[in-house]
C-alpha cells in the first residue's frame, strides 16, 4: 500500500518522471540501436566523400570526420555509456557497500584505518587516479570501467559507513540489538533497507557522475579506442572542426547532457520520495 503510494508520488513528481523517461530513452537507444539507427554499419564504416555534412534529411544529425552518420554513432554510443555506467557503478557498489556496512557496524581501529584509506582515495579527484589507472592499463572500455570502479568504491564505503554509524545510534537499531538480534540480522534486515534509499539516490546521481567522468576520459583519449562511438571521444574528435562543423560536437554533447540529466532528475525525485526524513515530515498527521 505504501509502495503504491510511493509510485503515485513518483509519477506526480514531474522531474523524476522526466528523468525516468530520459533513462528509458537511453536504454531503448542502446538495446535497439541496430534497428533505430538509419545507418547501423556506420559505426565502423566510412564514406570519406560524405565527411562533415551538416544535418539534413539523410543524416539527421550530420556526419563526422570520416563521413559516418552521427545519429547512428550516437545510438550505438549509448551501449558503451550504459555498459560503463552500470558496470562501473555496480562493481563499486558491490565492493564498497558491504565494506562500509561492516566497518560502520563494528567500528574499531580496523575500520578506522579503512576509512582513512578511503579518505585518501577521496582526497584526490577521482579523475586523476582514474586517468593514471586507465593509462596504466591501456585505453579500452574494460579498463575505463575498471579504473572507475577502483576509484569509486571508497565513495560508497564512505557513504554507507556514515549512514551505518548514524543508524547504529538510532533507537530502533539499538532496540533490535537489545532484543537479541544477531549482527548479521541487524545489518541486513534493519540497517541495509534503511540506507537503501540513500544508496539508490546516490547511485542514480553517481551514474550521472560516472558517465561524465567516463566521457572526460574518452575526451582525453583514454576511453574506448577508435572506431568505438564513445561520446566523449566523439567530442574530442570534433574539437578541431568546431568552427565549421557545429553539429559534430553538439550531438554527443547533448546526448551526454540528456542522460546525465536523466539520472540526476531521477536521483532528485527518488530523494524526495524515499528520504525517510522528508517522508516522515509529510506523512505525519
Amino acid at each position, binding site marked *: *500500500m*505504501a509502495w503504491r503510494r510511493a509510485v503515485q508520488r513518483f509519477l506526480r513528481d514531474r522531474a523524476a518522471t522526466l528523468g525516468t523517461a530520459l533513462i528509458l530513452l537511453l536504454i531503448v537507444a542502446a538495446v535497439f540501436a541496430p534497428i533505430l539507427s538509419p545507418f547501423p554499419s556506420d559505426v565502423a564504416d566510412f564514406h570519406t566523400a560524405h565527411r562533415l555534412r551538416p544535418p539534413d534529411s539523410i543524416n539527421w544529425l550530420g556526419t563526422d570526420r570520416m563521413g559516418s552518420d552521427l545519429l547512428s554513432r550516437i545510438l550505438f554510443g549509448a551501449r558503451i555509456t550504459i555498459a560503463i555506467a552500470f558496470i562501473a557503478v555496480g562493481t563499486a557498489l558491490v565492493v564498497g557497500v558491504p565494506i562500509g556496512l561492516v566497518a560502520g557496524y563494528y567500528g574499531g581501529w580496523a575500520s578506522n584505518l579503512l576509512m582513512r584509506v578511503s579518505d585518501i582515495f577521496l582526497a584526490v579527484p577521482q579523475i586523476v587516479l582514474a586517468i593514471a589507472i586507465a593509462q596504466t592499463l591501456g585505453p579500452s572500455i574494460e579498463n575505463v570501467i575498471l579504473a572507475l570502479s577502483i576509484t569509486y568504491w571508497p565513495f560508497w564505503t564512505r557513504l554507507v559507513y556514515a549512514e551505518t554509524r548514524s543508524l547504529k545510534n*538510532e*533507537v*530502533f537499531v*539499538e*532496540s*533490535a*540489538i*537489545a*532484543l*537479541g*538480534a*544477531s549482527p548479521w*540480522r541487524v545489518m541486513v534486515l*534493519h540497517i541495509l*533497507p*534503511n540506507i537503501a534509499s540513500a544508496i539508490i539516490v546516490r547511485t542514480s546521481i553517481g551514474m550521472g557522475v560516472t558517465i561524465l567522468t567516463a566521457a572526460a576520459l574518452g575526451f582525453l583519449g583514454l576511453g574506448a579506442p577508435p572506431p568505438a562511438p564513445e561520446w566523449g571521444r566523439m567530442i574530442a574528435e570534433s574539437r578541431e572542426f568546431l568552427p565549421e562543423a557545429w553539429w559534430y560536437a553538439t550531438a554527443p554533447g547533448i546526448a551526454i547532457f540528456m542522460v546525465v540529466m536523466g539520472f540526476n532528475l531521477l536521483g532528485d525525485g527518488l530523494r524526495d520520495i524515499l528520504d*525517510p526524513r522528508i*517522508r*516522515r515530515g509529510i*506523512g*505525519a*498527521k
Partner: protein
Amino acid sequence: MTEAILSVRNLRRHFAVRGPFNRRIGSIKAVDDVSFDLMPGEIFGLVGESGCGKSTLGKTIMGIHRPNGGEIWFGGQQIDLLLAAGQRAVRRNLQYAYQDPGASLDPRWKIGRSLHEPLIIHTALDQAEREAGIRKILEAVGLPGTHLDLYPHEISGGQQRRVGLARILTLHPKVVILDEPTSGLDVSVQATVLSLFRSLRETFQLTYIFISHDLAVIRMMCSRVAVMYLGRIVEMGPTDVIFDRPQHPYTKSLLAAIPKIGGVRVTRDFWLRGEPPDPGNLPSGCRFRTRCPKAVDRCAREEPALEATGCQSVACFFPG
C-alpha cells in the same frame, strides 16, 4: 524475605568526553556507584531530572552499555560478564521499553513484522504459531489486528507505545524496564496507558523498573522509588514514605516543585535556586551541594554514601 530477581551492585557507567585528537578530556559519570535490589512483582520507580542517568542505568542493566564497574545479578546469574550468546538468553527475560517507542520500531517495517522479530530471534516457532501468539498479545495491549499491516508512522503515539510493549511481551519476559513510558503523552492518554501497564503486570506477572521524571505518575504507579541526582541514587525507599517524609533536600525540592491542584501555589515561594551543574564537570563532595540550602564545608569535602535508616536510605549528612 524473598530473593531479589535483579540486583545491581556499585554499578558504574561513564562516558568519555573526547576533545580533538580523540583525546579524553573528561568523563560524564552518567551512572556512578548505583546499587539496588529489585523484588519480583514490584514496580520500582526511578525519578530524577533530565540527564541524571536514568536511561543510562536502564540500558546498562540491559547490556546495551557495558558497565565501567560493578555487578549486575539476574536470577542468580551475574549477567554483566556474559558473552553474546548468554546475553541473548537473558534478554528473553529482561526487556527494555524505549522512551520513544516510535523510534524503536524500524520505520520501514510493518508493525506485524516488527512483532514477529523477537520470536524469530528467540524461538523456533513457525509463521502460524507466531501469528497466533502475536494476535493474543496485540489484544492484550488493546490494539486491533488490522494495525499489523500499518507502518509505525501511520499510527498515533499512544498506539506506538502499545506496539512497543507488545513487541517486548511476545517473549514473556520477567522484568521490563519502562523508560519514561508516558512522556509526551497527554494526560487523557497517559491515564489509559498507565492502567494498561497495571493490567499487563497482572496478566503476565511482570516486574517493572519504571523510569520517569513525573513524580505524580511515580507516586501513582510504584511501590518503591529511587531518586537519582547526577548519576547517583540520593534517596530510596517505599513510595509512601518518600513522598510523605522525604529526607534528602533534593527529594524535598522535587516534591515541592510539582503543582498541587487545589493546594498552595508552590511557585509563590519555591526555594530551590540554580540549576544542576554540568554532568561533565561535577562539584566536589556532594553533587547537590551547589544548590542545597543546608550545605556546609563538609559537603564539599566528602561525598555522602547512601545509608539506610529504617526502610528508607538517604545519601545526605543532614537528612530530614
